[in-house]
């Protein structure tokens, strides 16, 4: 992640804007002229992390490309809430084809632009975790392997929210979904399954892979900018809380997106050609309970008899991430 070079300011680089900074150093979201690529009137739930993540990412990409951008959208919440006939919230050329083919459709758009000599027009494909890590995975891997000039953005809310909160391969262990009931000996989603697609993306040795969270806007925007400065296949995996699916308060969306990072459960890093080149160092490490407790999908871990073992296993996952990605910085 590109460090923002500022002296010291009241809000540093954490808030969206900063009136003390030069315009060019402020976030895209602080800009009155931001494109609002995903406009008001969309039908996302209150506090939707995906709606937020999509506007953050696409606005940044719009800025990076001087609005020469086309978006391809997989089926999912984002698609459904943004384009119910007769209204669309998108302000840029946008196409939705199917659930599992956003990466491939984007390849096609990029090919068309190349053949027409309009290489200044850039292409983004986007989808939820279901459309990315599960059903769209084949097309995604194919796009990576061919190194097509596409930035694929996965908005990860850890489940099939559009269809009523079912488990996906991005659903974390112990989480309750409508297909991982909190019943039996191991309630919620099982441990030892699922996949972390950023790491798989890295295995394709594509030019750029990064993770981001809607709670770290400047970092997210810097990653989009970095991605758009490169050609070839790029992947950005953005953590976007789902208040509905997770049983969280709508106002806690960003708080959750922050805590998941500060616990170590979701590492923020970036990688080029398969090698990690940067990571966010946890600023204020917190135990996983602080994150889990805010969500009803983990309610079965707490209560009168807390599931200490299970919480311990989740903490171990966070600790492993911290070790693996060096999330505590030099003092660690």
């Amino acid at each position, binding site marked *: 992640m590109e460090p923002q070079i500022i002296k010291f300011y009241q809000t540093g680089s954490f808030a969206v804007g900063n009136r003390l900074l030069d315009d060019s150093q402020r976030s895209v979201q602080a800009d009155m002229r931001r494109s609002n690529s995903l406009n008001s009137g969309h039908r996302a739930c209150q506090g939707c992390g995906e709606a937020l993540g999509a506007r953050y990412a696409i606005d940044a990409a719009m800025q990076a490309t001087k609005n020469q951008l086309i978006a391809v959208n997989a089926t999912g919440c984002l698609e459904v809430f943004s384009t119910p006939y007769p209204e669309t919230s998108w302000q840029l050329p946008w196409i939705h084809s199917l659930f599992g083919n956003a990466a491939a459709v984007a390849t*096609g758009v990029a090919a068309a632009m190349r053949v027409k000599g309009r290489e200044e027009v850039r292409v983004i494909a986007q989808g939820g975790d279901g459309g990315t890590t599960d059903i769209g995975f084949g097309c995604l891997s194919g796009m990576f392997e061919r190194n097509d000039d596409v930035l694929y953005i996965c908005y990860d809310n850890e489940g099939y929210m559009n269809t009523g909160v079912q488990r996906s391969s991005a659903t974390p262990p112990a989480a309750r979904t409508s297909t991982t009931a909190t019943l039996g000996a191991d309630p919620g989603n099982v441990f030892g399954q699922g996949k972390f697609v950023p790491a798989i993306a890295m295995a394709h040795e594509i030019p750029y892979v990064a993770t981001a969270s809607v709670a770290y806007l400047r970092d997210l925007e810097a990653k989009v900018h970095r991605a758009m400065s490169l050609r070839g296949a790029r992947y950005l995996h953005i953590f976007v809380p789902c208040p509905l699916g997770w049983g969280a308060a709508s106002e806690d969306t960003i708080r959750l997106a922050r805590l998941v990072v500060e616990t170590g459960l979701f590492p923020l890093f970036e990688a080029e050609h398969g090698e990690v080149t940067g990571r966010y160092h946890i600023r204020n490490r917190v135990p996983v309970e602080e994150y889990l407790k805010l969500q009803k999908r983990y309610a079965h871990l707490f209560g009168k008899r807390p599931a200490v073992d299970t919480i311990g296993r989740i903490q171990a996952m966070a600790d492993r991430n911290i070790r693996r990605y060096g999330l505590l910085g030099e003092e660690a």
Partner: protein
Amino acid sequence: MLKQTEGSHAVAEAVALCRPEVICAYPISPQTHIVEALGEMVKGGDLARCEFINVESEFAAMSVAIGASAAGARTYTATASQGLLFMAEAVYNAAGLGLPIVMTDANRAIGAPINIWNDHSDALSMRDSGWIQLFAETNQEALDLHIIAFRLAEELSLPVMVCMDGFILTHAYERVDMPAQAQVDRYLPAYEPRQVLDPRDPVSIGAMVGPEAFSEVRYLAHAKQLQALDRIPVLAAEFAAIFGRESGGLVHPYRTEDAETIVVAMGSVMGTIKDVVDEMRAGGAAIGALGICSYRPAPLAAIRAAVEGAKRVVVVEKSLAVGLGGILATDVRMAMSGLHLHGYTVIAGLGGRPILKSSLHRLFERAGRDDLEHVTFLDLNWDVVNRVLDRERAVRRSGSIAENVLRDVGVTSTPGV
């Protein structure tokens, strides 16, 4: 220019003459030679300004095609059989979005049991997808239909599938008359998309449409196909004017004028049927044939006009609606509704079973005597079938029918029960 070449190669050359901008390729027999040849032309520079993309599946092939077409590129791909089914979701989607993609389907059976040989099960499974589906009788027609297909697709903003029999045409070396680039350019103007993804005029393509408008959207798709019924003959006539030969159109009647028996079929088998018709005509039989070129849209009026003077209609089709009978035959019956004709359905050539002239002779003779069942399976090995059926009546057990048939045919070494 006349040349002796493979059907696949002829199609590839014709596609190249159409100046495609994006081609997606995924290997599946018997379509591979087409995209191989195109890949060579792109890589070698003979086909300039074209992106050739090796995708990871047919689903991706059609998806890439969707993206490219929506972004305003003239787009082509080819597939067959399982490949067509694997891309089925995207096939429907391309039609729903009204994207003028042209695709070759090198017709092939669908498994299980896996079978690489020719029949029409694949294409016909997509009959309701919203694509225009044109069937070629010869390699000449196959290459001509691709040129017509791009024109038709782009005029209507609908995808067109050109169907040609796998192996029988794709792998056949025949004489074809390859058009000149100037001719093709005269016939096929540059692609001007009806809707396009372009930052200069942004739109959202692919909205979610609810009950309040979905029926209307579907009706409009239907209306567009009906429009195609008018355009296809016109485009065939224009084609004839520029290229000097008949290709395309809705149907191809052959000696139907005074025919009492009219054989209806699609694809390359029409050649064999025509030979048989000639031979039977020489023997005094009043028989003719009707080739269907435009399967979708279904040319109901043209079929009706061609058959209404006859006494009987024999539909010979390389497809089977399991549990019903004919697929093409059902369409033909619809065209005949109200006409008092005998209608016979013949299921033939499944999975590459040769359709022999001798068998057709016997078949049509029986038909002429109205001595046919309503649904006939041509050259079926009844011994094998009956043995399996008898056994299954006796023993209730599950298992692979294919395995049992092979055992009875004597191909496997496993002793029979």
